[in-house]
């Protein structure tokens, strides 16, 4: 992977003036931009791995009786036998698809890549508060990735207890057939926790203490706000997962029984601890995406963000509510029904800030001058898909309906509308949007648009029908649905979903091609190809080590587009002095 990083960054920092060894410059770099690009390569790789796991899974769901897995022969007998994916391998696929996507792809891509890249640039500072910790936060992810990949090849295969790792299934190897694989994943999880905590300390401290002069809280771009809030969530939630994960490792290895009822332990304790982390995690996975979307929509609509303060308030309240709703994952778990009542109410109320955000995004587009480039298309796609994901969430927030919906494909549809239609759409948008800043070249627009439409169409073909399959009652994580009487008649739907999933996966390669092709062949981008106002666009692309020749001073809010008093252009950079541009253009 090292060589890829080198290639990618070679473009980025070609004009680097510092005398540094190759190793210090590209591998063990403390420059936040290089670390961000390392994270980007890392996460794109794991995005592909996660996708691959999903494809195998979909094949099994669509054609459980067929066998004949294409290229099935390359798998060892313990995974695929006679062309059939074995149930234990299927469980590993389900588990590791979720785990890889959440912990090694989406989360580090949202936070590791963009918090690293954008926080110093958008705040107008030269680097993170603790550059060496920042480097460590990337290098803690590397063993995590290696352990995860290795876990597939140990005796017993990779973890197979679901990404939620419910004990006792995850704690007793004799019940799953998975021994070392589970432990390796848990150790990887501890590394991920470490990485995430180190990263968060950096992001929070930098945001609090290192803003450029004039960059007041209410002049911070919404991206920064969302990343800041996300870092707080990660800081407070990840350690709980680490603690729980370590207890689970002990259960597996040294004979404790924290989560095993035979020894007096409590399976529900695991669920409480996991979801105490898990629900904030859900917001860790969506808040940055909301930030990117706000930013891209504003730039693409040439309008200020509609209701900036409400957006900030909504972020803060989502984060706060995020800590008191975890029980809604456990309505059917046997926990105290009284808790169910409390959690229903708090959960439903989290819909309110989400609704505010959705309407405000629409407000941002309203009467705008929409530039429908790839980044903007993905941002609009985010709003459209997130709305569906949010609305389907109302079904399971309502406890009685959740009795039926819980652990069916309806949930699968919901989380994918939020995590893929939401987070990943916004991430694609973010990559199209900030790619020119990272590498100095634009990504190819035509390929970008084709990528968007393919992704959009296939995505909906994959996940919308899952609502229907869920209504019929198809359970999650099920290896073969054909044996159930109530699941007769959904085979065609499952096959369509699988074909569409193959299409969705394939369209990812178009993106990958575009990404690498544009490194060399992309149109050269100037400092500010989008005519955007935030600080990162006011320095050359790619920015040099240290980001600024002189520290910028901020005079305006973050999204001053189409200001009536500015005549020659429709934007007003945050660091443009009011008296230089126009005497009346000073904003709040």
């Amino acid at each position, binding site marked *: 992977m090292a060589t890829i990083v080198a290639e990618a960054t070679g473009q980025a920092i070609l004009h680097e003036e510092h005398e540094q060894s190759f190793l210090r410059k590209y591998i063990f770099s403390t420059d936040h931009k290089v670390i961000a690009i390392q994270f980007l390569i890392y996460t794109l790789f794991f995005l592909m791995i996660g996708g691959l796991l999903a494809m195998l899974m979909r094949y099994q769901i669509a054609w459980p009786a067929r066998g004949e897995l294409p290229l099935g022969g390359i798998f060892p007998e313990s995974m695929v036998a006679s062309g059939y994916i074995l149930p234990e391998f299927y469980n590993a696929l389900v588990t590791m698809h979720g785990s890889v996507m959440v912990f090694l792809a989406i989360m580090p891509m949202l936070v590791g890549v963009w918090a690293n890249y954008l926080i110093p640039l958008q705040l107008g*500072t030269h680097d993170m*508060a*603790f550059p060496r910790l920042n480097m460590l936060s990337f290098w803690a992810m590397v063993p995590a990735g290696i352990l995860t990949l290795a876990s597939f090849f140990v005796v017993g295969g990779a973890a197979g207890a679901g990404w939620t790792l419910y004990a006792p299934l995850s704690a007793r190897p004799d019940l799953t057939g998975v021994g070392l694989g589970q432990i390796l994943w848990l150790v990887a999880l501890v590394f991920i926790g470490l990485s995430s*905590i180190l990263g*968060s*300390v*950096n992001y*929070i*401290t930098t945001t*609090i*203490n*290192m*803003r*450029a*002069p*004039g*960059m*007041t809280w209410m002049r911070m771009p919404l991206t920064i706000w969302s990343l800041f809030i996300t870092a707080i969530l990660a*800081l*407070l*939630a*990840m*350690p*709980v997962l*680490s*603690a*729980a994960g*370590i*207890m689970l490792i*002990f259960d597996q290895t*040294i*004979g*404790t*029984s*924290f989560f095993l009822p035979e*020894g*007096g*332990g*409590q399976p529900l*304790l695991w669920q*409480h*601890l996991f979801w105490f982390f898990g629900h904030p995690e859900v917001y860790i996975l969506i808040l940055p995406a909301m930030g990117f979307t706000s930013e891209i929509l504003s730039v693409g609509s040439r309008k200020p963000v509609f209701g900036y303060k409400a957006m900030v308030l909504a972020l803060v309240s989502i984060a706060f509510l995020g800590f008191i709703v975890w029980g809604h994952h456990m309505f059917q778990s046997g926990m105290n029904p009284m808790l169910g009542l409390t959690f229903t109410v708090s959960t439903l109320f989290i819909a309110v800030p989400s609704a505010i955000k959705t309407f405000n995004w629409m407000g941002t587009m309203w009467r705008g001058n929409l530039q429908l480039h790839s980044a903007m298309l993905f941002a609009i796609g985010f709003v459209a898909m997130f709305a569906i994901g949010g609305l389907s969430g109302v079904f399971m927030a309502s406890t009685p309906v959740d009795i039926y919906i819980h652990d069916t494909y309806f949930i699968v549809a919901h989380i994918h509308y939020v995590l893929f239609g939401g987070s990943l759409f916004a991430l694609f948008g973010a990559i199209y949007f900030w790619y020119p800043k990272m590498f100095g070249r634009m990504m190819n627009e035509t390929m970008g648009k084709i990528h968007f439409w393919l992704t959009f169409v296939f995505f909906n073909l994959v996940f919308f029908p899952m609502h229907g399959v869920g209504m019929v009652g198809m359970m999650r994580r099920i290896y073969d649905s054909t044996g159930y009487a109530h699941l007769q008649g959904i085979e065609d739907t499952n096959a369509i979903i699988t074909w569409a999933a193959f299409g969705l996966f394939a369209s990812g390669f178009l993106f990958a091609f575009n990404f690498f092709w544009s490194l060399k062949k992309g149109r050269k981008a100037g*400092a500010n190809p989008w005519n955007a106002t935030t600080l990162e666009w*006011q320095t050359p692309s790619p920015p040099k080590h240290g980001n600024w020749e*002189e*520290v*910028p*001073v901020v*005079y305006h809010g973050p999204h001053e587009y189409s200001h009536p008093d500015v005549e020659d252009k429709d934007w007003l*950079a945050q*660091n*443009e*002095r009011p008296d*230089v*541009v126009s005497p009346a253009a000073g904003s709040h």
Partner: protein
Amino acid sequence: MAHAATAGRVPERGLDVYTQKVGMWVFLCSEVMFFAGLIGSYVVLRFGAADTWAVPNEVLNVPITAFNTFLLICSSVTMVKAFAAAQAGDQRGIKVYLLGTTLLGATFLGVQVYEYVELVLHQSWQGSHGFTPAAGLYGATFFTMTGFHGFHVLLGVICLAWATIRAWRGHWGADNTHGIEVLGLYWHFVDLVWIILFTIVYLI
């Protein structure tokens, strides 16, 4: 591009506290959550299986641990004394107090190792020989919590030793107190956690 030529302007105020200190406090927040996860589990598990807990002093050696607690409290006071000495530019004070803190921390660890060895090898519990992490929830929670605290002490002692070496090289002084203060914050936090652990694990 209208770059305002204003080099040297101060950044936004933030917390009015230097960055390393903010960073340490933010990090301590995550540490609080980590120990909250462990302690929370302890409380819940204990409520669920109260009858499997031994009464204080039956298994665990309270007097020696009380002495250990006292050691840690002393190390906290030497730590703040080191900071005060640094602020006053008292080089000798810095060296003496940092060294003292390191030694007290190391002694704490030594006593804890002794305690563990005694428990695992010689203590009997519920009819079986040796009180190990596999000895029911009581053993599991005891070793997990005190073990992780001990791990934090170990990290602290390593950092303290490093700071002490630097003290002998004259690194610290009235103009360079931040490192000692930040390390002190961590050390006091470890002390604070022990105060709580000592109470709920050994005494209640």
